């Protein structure tokens, strides 16, 4: 079948049943728009939590009175661990100076302290892919076993919360996207089914004249693709309008929004996603119809 004829039939049908098609398009648009906004929110949460590990570190406290050579050995042993990105030695004097400057306004806390009570320590930064709470726990235990190390401290609770937030965001996002995509496919499925039943007589004539299933199906697939793509373009336009008229203004006026990112490269895929869902819905409908 010449593709141009299938396109012509699809366009005629889109025009003839314009209200059904418009309604489907708007429903799919609403679904894609909600997915886009949700993605925008989840994307920014993900980015925010992804940057947090850079501020995360393990603090390794060393035994008192370790010689320089021993300290170097401990540093080398810690640095040799696969998950470790960098190791910084903090001398007890430096740590005390830092503590003093931190407690500048609460000097009374340090009153009565004659000696520096702090030990030498190491600040250990981790690689991004080693941020799982289990692997950090394991690293802490391994480090604790190194000779010369007295204690290892890390934000166990913080790490757990971070992991939970990330997992929660990922699962919520996936479930929401799955529900909405299923809804969109169902809308396309129902639309194509309705359009098919409205043209039963015509299709019967096509069949009796020798039309193959491919000839009959092609215009419906194109119609599904056209509805999905149009909905995708409309939601793309809506997202950009929202970005331009709302987020840009918020970014300029509310400091909290300054770090918000707009993933336009992902939103540009909306027409393609719409087309794919439209074709998928139409294909399921045509596969289930008996003709």
């Amino acid at each position, binding site marked *: *079948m*010449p593709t141009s*004829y299938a396109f012509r039939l699809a366009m005629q049908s889109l025009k003839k049943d314009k209200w059904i098609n418009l309604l489907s398009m708007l429903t799919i648009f609403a679904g894609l728009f909600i997915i886009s906004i949700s993605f925008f929110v989840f994307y920014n949460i993900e980015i925010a939590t992804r940057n947090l590990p850079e501020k995360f570190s393990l603090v390794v406290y060393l035994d008192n009175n370790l010689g320089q050579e021993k300290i170097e050995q401990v540093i080398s042993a810690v640095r040799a661990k696969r998950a470790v990105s960098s190791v910084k030695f903090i001398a007890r004097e430096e740590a005390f100076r830092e503590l003093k400057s931190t407690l500048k306004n609460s000097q009374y806390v340090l009153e009565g302290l004659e000696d520096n009570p702090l030990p030498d320590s190491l600040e250990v930064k981790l690689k991004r892919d080693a941020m799982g709470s289990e692997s950090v726990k394991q690293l802490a235990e391994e480090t604790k076993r190194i000779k010369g190390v007295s204690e290892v401290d890390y934000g166990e609770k913080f790490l757990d919360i971070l992991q939970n937030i990330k997992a929660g965001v990922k699962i919520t996002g996936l479930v929401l996207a799955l529900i909405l995509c299923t809804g969109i496919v169902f809308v396309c499925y129902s639309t194509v089914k309705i359009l098919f039943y409205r043209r039963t007589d015509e299709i*019967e*004539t*096509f069949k*009796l004249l*020798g039309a193959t299933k491919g000839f009959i199906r092609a215009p419906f697939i194109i119609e599904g693709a056209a509805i999905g793509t149009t909905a995708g373009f409309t939601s793309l336009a809506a997202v950009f309008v929202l970005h331009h008229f709302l987020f840009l203004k918020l970014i300029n006026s509310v400091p909290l929004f300054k770090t918000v990112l707009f993933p336009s490269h992902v939103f540009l895929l909306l027409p393609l996603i719409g087309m794919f869902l439209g074709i998928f819905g139409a294909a399921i409908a045509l596969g289930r119809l008996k003709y």
Partner: protein
Amino acid sequence: MEQPDPMIHFENVTKEYELQTALRDVTCSIEKGEMVFLTGPSGSGKTTMLKLIYLAELPDQGDITIAGWNTGTLKESSIPFVRRNIGVVFQDFRLLDNRNIYENISLALRIRGIGEREIKARVYEALKTVNLRHKADSYPRRLSGGEQQRIVIARAIVAEPTVLLADEPTGNLDPETAEDVLKTFKDIHAKGTTILIATHNRELYMNSGKRVLRLEAGSLVSREVC
């Protein structure tokens, strides 16, 4: 010398609907290039026999062979290709009201994947055969019953099928128009097309010199030359 295979062959064919036997143990053949009339009272099984030939129905018993294809062993995906050998003049016309005459006739060619230039030439040629070339841009509802009948004939012959089936092609026509339609069929037959016309109009086949198959209550009761 070996006899050539018939174009259409029914072997002990029976077709039943829920509470009624439409065709009962029918055996008959129509040779290549032959023009045959199928007659009988209403409900005798004429339309069922045609439907079995153009594969709108399948037999409950027996074998049907059309242009060498055995319909009993045919895959569903092959049915459209068998139908492309058969032109049908439907009793209820089956013209698409939302398309003009040119589009209605060209549909039979588009289905076969023929190019636009050839479609144009062949559609106008078919319209010329039925003397309705000037109606190409009209819509079916604007035409009289006789004109619609001839448009359906044009659609049936435009793809040059090897078999032409016509179900009551003069059913609603006045005698003069019926005569024109019959003449059209004779012209098509003269080009070598095998034709089977189902009709209860005696005028159409009397003294035609063609074979007449007569059905009664689903059984083939006679096959004589009139």
